[in-house]
């Protein structure tokens, strides 16, 4: 009862806080204002305690909770028990709610809620938290197992859980979801501020975006940092899990998370450029509000299963609740700004003499371009669904759609970025000249393909013209724009950094340079890594015998520089030493449960103290108690048990089955196949979860010993026989060596991939994240580190207005 009470409590306090906040806002008074912040604190506290309690239930494997039972099992180690907390819908919503509540409380405590604007913002944030709490109230992660499965009988707790999706049993999956939900929770604040801005503007109170711009910028940047880190962690996970297409496949779920990321990136650029009375007075707040709506859209896609089956969209409660939330956030975050823009925004004075080439226009083009990139992803996800609803026609969207449409946009954006950076420092003439040079170089490079693997896609005469055209472009075309950006970004940093007297400003410029260079290198390395991955395979038929030899043979892998040697072969299962006491009741436990398990099937163990063999049944007393095992049916006469044996049996617990025998309370009626010794239990109590096969390998490259390690696969018996590959990855300087093994009956089929540029990718994401961290900390206007040195005392207005 603790869990549901915590959820209900948080929903109530959240609701009261929301109502009081809106009341205070509408009446413009400060009644109750002293209780609101504590109320938000209590809401956050209750949700955090609920999350902690759920985690505790996972750690101690409390299977009276259906959600715990569904998402973990005894054999799963501690770290992945915690992963189970957010493996399902309910747990991840709880995580999200708790984080969002903490964010709301933190901001209420820091900024206070005395002002009318702050009330509105907090009202919206706490409103969202309350909505999550209500979702959890109706679809709780604390539903008890007896409520979920009434047929199991009152008071029964299963002895083992059903397990965790094997794909989630991975260190990256233990941290990826929390990082993602931190980003999502942080985005609640800018959403609330932006929506409040429009409400306030429409009500004639003058908006609050310009007062809160520092706060918005910080929230957005920190969210971006976490969201980027989450995507990177997700990619690393996908890289380790075979079948997910390396670090990135255009799987709907992956595309879904990219959409808010792209949009958030565009929003950051728009917000940088926000000026209350002119530039982006409407667009920057509008994009800020829309980002959160897209987060909900992404979540709805990931969680609803709409892309696996169009029909199961609103089947489960969370799916429907998310749809309602999606509708609400769309109305507030998209329709409200759009309506305001169409109906109320004061018309800008049209001035035809405005020059085209200004920094503001270039930034605007950047925002639009990134927006267009986001549109490609949104559209790719949405139109097959739309199409099948409208026309009943199913169409196919492959990676080619995303890659080929995004490619020219990315090229154009890189050229634009280079031009912007150059223009900032070198002025109009020089910048236009270099843009001309690099654009020409890009076009020429697009025509030069040293081999077929440089082409973006294998073209097919059935493809539409555009896909054929872009598909036959050479990846070489990526290099001139990338070089352009790197040169101009470094040039700009060299110009700005030494000249500035403010240390924080210098740091920020370095951060800006790091983010942009990191991004460009990432784009190049991802594209080249995909195009130049080489794959070859070899079958070692006698892997098991070879492993036993001291000096086994080295097998050359055809069409590659690799050779492999099998040094080990093993088959294993988990749990290694199953104890039947984990899955069966002792006599005392059966006695304690009493009547409640009458006529249910239960496993029971104990030491035999008496055996009565009759013509129809053999009955066996356990532990000198009132509980007996009754073996009936064909072959019961052959059951070989004698006093002192430790046995276990599965069968129907029949209370008062033999009323004529006073020393029997219950008989567990079983048949000969369902009784066994505790060291050799019957098949029904087999606890094997995982059957694994693995080969130890030594890999040689070009005759040199490269690395040794293990690869193989695991079958998860109780999860539809789902199979997971354990790959062996050797990280090299220039390329990774990635070995996939299928091991069966002593034979190992090995596939070896040479994946280039993985380290460059790792470094570039590191630079990207570190750069953003530097900006968050040292931005002279809104940075978290205020005073670095005395020299920062000079007014921040010396900073040029739109500098990134």
């Amino acid at each position, binding site marked *: 009862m603790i869990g549901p009470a915590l959820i209900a409590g948080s929903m109530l306090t959240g609701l009261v806080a929301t109502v009081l906040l809106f009341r205070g806002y509408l009446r413009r008074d400060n009644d109750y204002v002293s209780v609101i912040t504590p109320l938000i604190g209590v809401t956050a506290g209750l949700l955090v305690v609920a999350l902690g309690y759920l985690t505790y239930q996972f750690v101690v494997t409390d299977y009276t909770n259906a959600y715990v039972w569904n998402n973990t099992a005894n054999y799963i180690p501690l770290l992945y028990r915690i992963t189970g907390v957010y493996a399902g819908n309910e747990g991840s919503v709880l995580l999200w709610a708790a984080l969002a509540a903490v964010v709301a409380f933190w901001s209420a405590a820091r900024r206070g809620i005395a002002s009318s604007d702050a009330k509105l913002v907090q009202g919206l944030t706490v409103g969202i938290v309350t909505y999550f709490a209500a979702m959890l109230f109706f679809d709780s992660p604390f539903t008890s197992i007896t409520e979920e499965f009434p047929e199991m009988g009152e008071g029964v707790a299963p002895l083992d859980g059903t397990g965790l999706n094997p794909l989630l049993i991975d260190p990256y999956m233990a941290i990826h979801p929390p990082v993602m939900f931190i980003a999502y929770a942080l985005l609640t604040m800018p959403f609330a501020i932006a929506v409040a801005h429009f409400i306030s503007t429409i009500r004639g109170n003058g908006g609050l975006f310009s007062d809160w711009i520092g706060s918005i910028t910080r929230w957005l940047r920190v969210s971006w940092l976490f969201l980027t880190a989450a995507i990177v962690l997700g990619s690393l996970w996908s890289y380790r899990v075979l079948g997910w297409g390396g670090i990135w496949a255009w799987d709907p779920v992956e595309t879904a998370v990219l959409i808010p990321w792209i949009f958030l990136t565009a929003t950051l650029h728009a917000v940088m450029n926000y000026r209350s009375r002119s530039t982006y007075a409407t667009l920057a707040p509008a994009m800020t509000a829309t980002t959160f709506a897209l987060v909900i859209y992404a979540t709805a896609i990931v969680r609803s299963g709409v892309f696996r*089956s169009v029909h199961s969209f609103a089947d489960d409660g969370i799916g429907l609740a998310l749809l309602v939330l999606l509708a609400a956030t769309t109305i507030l975050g998209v329709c409200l700004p759009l309506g305001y823009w169409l109906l109320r925004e004061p018309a*800008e004075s*049209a*001035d*035809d003499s*405005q*020059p*085209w080439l*200004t920094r*503001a*226009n270039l930034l*605007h*083009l950047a925002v*639009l*371009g990134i*927006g*267009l990139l986001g*549109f*490609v992803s949104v*559209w*790719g996800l949405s*139109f*097959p669904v739309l*199409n099948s609803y409208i*026309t*009943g*026609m*199913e*169409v*196919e*969207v492959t990676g080619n*759609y995303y890659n080929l*449409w995004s490619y020219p946009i990315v090229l154009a954006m890189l050229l634009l970025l280079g031009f912007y950076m150059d223009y900032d420092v070198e002025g109009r003439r020089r910048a236009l000249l270099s843009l001309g040079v690099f654009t020409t170089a890009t076009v020429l490079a697009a025509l030069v393909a040293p081999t077929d693997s440089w082409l973006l896609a294998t073209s*097919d005469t*059935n*493809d*539409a013209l*555009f*896909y054929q055209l872009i598909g036959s472009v050479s990846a070489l075309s990526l290099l001139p724009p990338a070089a352009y950006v790197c040169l101009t970004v470094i040039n700009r940093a060299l110009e700005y950094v030494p000249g500035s007297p403010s240390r924080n400003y210098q740091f920020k410029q370095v951060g800006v340079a790091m983010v942009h260079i990191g991004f460009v290198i990432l784009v190049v390395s991802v594209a080249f890594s995909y195009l130049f991955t080489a794959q070859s395979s070899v079958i070692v038929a006698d892997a098991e015998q070879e492993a036993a030899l001291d000096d086994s043979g080295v097998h050359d892998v055809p069409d590659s520089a690799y050779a492999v040697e099998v040094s080990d072969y093993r088959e294993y299962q988990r749990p290694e030493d199953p104890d039947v006491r984990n899955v069966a009741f002792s006599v005392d436990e059966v006695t304690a449960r009493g009547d409640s398990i009458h006529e249910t099937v239960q496993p029971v163990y104990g030491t035999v103290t008496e055996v009565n063999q009759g013509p129809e049944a053999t009955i066996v007393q356990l532990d000198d108690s009132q509980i007996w095992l009754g073996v009936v049916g064909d072959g019961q006469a052959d059951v070989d048990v004698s006093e002192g044996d430790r046995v276990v049996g599965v069968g129907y617990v029949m209370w008062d089955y033999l009323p004529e025998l006073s020393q029997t309370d219950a008989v567990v009626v079983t048949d000969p196949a369902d009784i066994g010794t505790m060291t050799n239990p019957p098949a029904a109590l087999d606890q094997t979860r995982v059957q694994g096969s693995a080969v130890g390998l030594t890999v040689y490259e070009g005759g040199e010993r490269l690395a040794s390690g293990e690869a193989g696969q695991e079958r998860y018996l109780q999860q539809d026989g789902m199979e997971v590959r354990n790959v062996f990855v050797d990280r090299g300087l220039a390329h990774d060596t990635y070995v996939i093994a299928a091991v069966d009956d002593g034979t190992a089929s090995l596939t070896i991939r040479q994946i280039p540029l993985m380290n460059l990718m790792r470094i570039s994401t590191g630079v990207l994240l570190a750069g953003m961290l530097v900006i968050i900390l040292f931005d002279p206007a809104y940075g978290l580190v205020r005073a670095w040195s005395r020299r920062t005392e000079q007014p921040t207005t010396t900073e040029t207005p739109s500098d990134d």
Partner: protein
Amino acid sequence: MTPRKTLTIALLIMALGIGYYSMNTASVLSDESHTYHGDTAWKTDVDEAMETAAAEDKPVLVYFWTTWCTYCEDYNKNAYVDPDVNDRLDDFVLLAVNLDDSSPEAKDLQQRYNANYPPQHVAITPDGELLVEINGYAETDSFIAYLDEAQSEWESR
């Protein structure tokens, strides 16, 4: 019009263009009555296919497939765009069964011809008698040979 508005409108038009173009050129997997594989269109209604076959006095080629099967993609890329294959397919009534989502009639076919993984083909008479079975992926040459064999089986009845 200011440059920013002009740019915005230009990019909006571009987005609409991308949307329209991509939607119209996306390869169709299925509509109400057919699924498409390569250059071929297959019926999805079992009863309708059987009736058509009986009326036109043709054998039925049943194709068990799924969206996730890579060998099905190989069929699409190699066999179903091959003119020789398509010539022979004209002599069959084509019926595709998606192993993932299927009607009771399709489930029934699946059981009757023991088709439990994709891709599999069976050529049958309108009465449901088996002519030829093609389990798994067949290279285009042998696929044609199978189709010819099914045709001669059919003619000899």
